[in-house]
């Protein structure tokens, strides 16, 4: 009781005169997390983090016990992507910390704000190769925005607060705080300050000059075949609404990166869909024909551009970007507008002219019609279950309103092509690192951010087996998720590359799986198997109605390929296309 009273005292004690309370490093950690607005953390205990766990019951923060620390990092990541807040995970030293690495790298490449707390051996043992000592700040140096090794309880509060500030400011990213056991145990005075944290150093002011706005506007107003590129940054900056106004005023069609899906409504007449390696053919052709690209919050990743040498050669480029290091990295910008995307769009809006671009949009429509004849949706299923049909049906049945979390592989691309997202943060996927095993744990994290929304996990038979251990976390937490497990019996995306580029030699891609229905049932979850298209609707319905997590195994055609496809480093327009309906029907048995 006394302790609680003291804690409350500390909470109120924001003036410098108030007497500081004495707290252990572990208590300070939870106190600061709570004050940073953290509601839930995902973690796994061990020797070097035990003082932190011992202090947990006194905190109102909910702890989710994961089954593998990689899951903890992905859950924190899913929570952050779904909420726009900082996600937090906790692990012990040594193997606990190294198990986080894939999850941290995933967050780094997709600019997701995380604070990862790891325990470390006592400061007196540092550098001695003590039991479970690993240099985790060294290991994570290139995959964090920044990291801290805290060896004194006195430094803890400040380091944690700074970690949150670094994680969410500018271009967000993961931050790791490694805390030695003695720093968790030591008792020191704690005084909270409401002063905002200031990061060290001076950063150059990024003011947009009048001249920049003029130049950008004049390029936009004079363009005949312009495109807007919508990236993940639009979602992070909360700039969807402004982008919509900008597109509607300028009449410029909008193409999206994988991570930008949802930032611009798919049903909008200006929406073109996804660009890049598995982008829509008409989008890639339009990019190659364009004379101006207005890139908003995207970084011209190689999966988007294909061969840079022949990429959009006729197009001028305007690059709106929050991270100055991304400008002129892959593609030279004619005008670079650095800083908050919303602010840049706001400045640009009054300067641009109202346009329609009738001819250009008619040209893109023509490109689109050619593609429609090759669309798999037009192909009859003839009693066979095809993954693209499943994704299309899922979109229809959930009226495009679900929050979808996808894994990595063919199913991920079909989801991006056939599930049409209308709002930001309605698709969570690992784009930059392409981490198999991401979906299930990320969806668990997302559930804590969005307790009332329908959530679907779309995952392959390969990726599911990487983090399937977290099914039991769903059961233990009583979480409701719907899992669409796309079982094609292959590591499908790799099999596709083998089919196209390695003479059809399927080496190490055919995949045996457990009985997924029994597996899910063994976790106490609802499960069903779907083998024909007719069963899809009733299974989706049953899954949605199930009180807890439900798994549907869709047994789909094994050798389906994702079309179109730009082979790695090929020119963007040199796509491998799905054989047209007529060609395909010849091959039908």
């Amino acid at each position, binding site marked *: 009781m006394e302790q609680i009273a003291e804690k409350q005292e500390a909470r109120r004690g924001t003036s410098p005169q108030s007497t500081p309370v004495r707290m252990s490093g572990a208590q300070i950690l939870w106190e600061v997390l709570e004050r940073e607005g953290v509601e839930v953390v995902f973690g796994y205990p061990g020797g070097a983090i035990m003082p932190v766990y011992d202090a947990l019951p006194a905190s109102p923060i909910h702890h989710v016990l994961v089954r593998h620390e990689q899951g903890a990092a992905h859950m924190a990541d899913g929570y952050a992507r779904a909420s726009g807040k900082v996600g937090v995970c906790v692990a012990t030293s040594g193997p606990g910390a190294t198990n986080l690495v894939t999850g941290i790298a995933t967050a780094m490449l997709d600019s997701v704000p995380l604070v990862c707390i790891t325990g470390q051996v006592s400061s007196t043992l540092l550098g001695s190769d003590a039991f479970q000592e690993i240099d985790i700040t060294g290991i994570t140096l290139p995959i964090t925005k920044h990291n801290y090794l805290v060896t004194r309880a006195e430094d803890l509060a400040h380091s944690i607060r700074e970690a949150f500030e670094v994680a969410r400011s500018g271009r967000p990213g993961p931050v790791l705080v490694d805390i030695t056991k003695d720093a968790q145990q030591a008792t020191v005075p704690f005084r909270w300050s409401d002063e905002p944290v200031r990061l060290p150093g*001076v950063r150059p002011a990024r003011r947009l000059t009048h001249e920049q706005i003029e130049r950008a506007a004049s390029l936009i107003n004079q363009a005949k075949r312009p495109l807007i590129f919508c990236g993940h940054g639009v979602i992070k900056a909360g700039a969807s609404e402004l982008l919509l106004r900008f597109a509607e005023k300028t009449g410029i069609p909008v193409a999206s990166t994988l991570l930008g899906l949802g930032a611009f409504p798919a049903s909008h007449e200006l929406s073109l869909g996804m660009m890049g390696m598995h982008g829509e053919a008409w989008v890639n052709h339009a990019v190659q024909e364009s004379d101006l690209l207005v890139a908003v919050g995207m970084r011209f990743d190689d999966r988007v551009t294909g061969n840079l040498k022949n990429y959009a050669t006729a197009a001028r480029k305007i690059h709106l970007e929050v991270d100055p290091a991304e400008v002129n990295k892959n593609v030279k910008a004619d005008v670079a507008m650095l800083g908050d995307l919303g602010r840049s769009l706001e400045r640009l809006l009054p300067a641009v002219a109202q346009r329609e671009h009738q001819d250009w949009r008619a040209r893109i429509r023509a490109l689109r019609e050619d593609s429609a004849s090759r669309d798999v949706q037009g192909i009859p299923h003839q009693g066979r279950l095809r993954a693209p049909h499943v994704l299309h049906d899922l979109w229809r049945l959930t009226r495009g309103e679900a929050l979808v979390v996808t894994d990595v592989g063919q199913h991920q691309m079909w989801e991006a092509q056939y599930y049409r997202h209308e709002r930001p943060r309605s698709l969570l996927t690992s784009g930059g690192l392409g981490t198999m095993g991401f979906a299930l744990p990320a969806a668990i994290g997302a559930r804590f951010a969005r307790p009332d929304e329908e959530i679907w996990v779309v995952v392959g038979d390969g990726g599911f087996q990487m983090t399937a251990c977290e099914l039991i976390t769903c059961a233990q937490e009583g979480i409701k998720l719907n899992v669409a497990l796309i079982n094609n019996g292959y590591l499908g995306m790799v099999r596709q590359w083998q089919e196209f580029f390695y003479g059809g030699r399927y080496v190490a891609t055919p995949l045996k799986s457990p009985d997924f229905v029994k597996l899910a049932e063994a976790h106490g979850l609802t499960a069903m198997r779907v083998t024909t298209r007719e069963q899809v609707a009733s299974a989706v319905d049953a899954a949605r109605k199930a009180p807890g997590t439900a798994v549907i195994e869709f047994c789909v055609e094994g050798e389906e390929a994702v079309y179109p496809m730009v082979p790695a480093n090929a020119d963007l327009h040199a796509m491998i296309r799905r054989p047209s309906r007529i060609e395909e029907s010849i091959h039908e048995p």
Partner: protein
Amino acid sequence: MSHDSAFAPSIGRRIARTFIVYVQDRPGTLNRVVSLFRRRGFNIDSLTVGRTEREGVSRITLVVQSDEDTARRLEANFYKLVNVLEVHDVTHAPSVSREMAFIKVRAGAERRGEILQLCETFRARVVDVAPESLTAEITGTSEKLDGLIELLRPFGILEMVRTGAVAMARGTAAQGSGGPSEGDLAA
């Protein structure tokens, strides 16, 4: 220590560029700086680190071969490091730059006179003389050091060490005395 990155658009003119970088004097800071170069494939000519007039602040002088775009990207990448306080590209600013070297050169009695004369011309000091060698200390611009080294090479250079350049802006205004600005932090 260098490779040409495949992605960097190297269309501009590559010249030696000098950066002055102020960093927090914390464990691991230099590691972060070097790691940045390694990972992004920037070409380092030289890198020197030392204390400054400010407590807890170290100063790095860095010379890299790069074109203008790459230089801007390098600067932007520096600013992504939380421990980096300020970055100044002094390549085109009026500044003085000096490097120091010890050069141990083969110098038997018959050729010693010639070598001493060269040292004199370059204002290098002889800091050690042995029966078969002598060691010269030279301070100057990197180009001046290059000049002497080239002339001494035919005699046989036995050992050499160069410090790398340190640079400072001319005039009263100190680099990096500017107050905080309202830019985006650690973008």
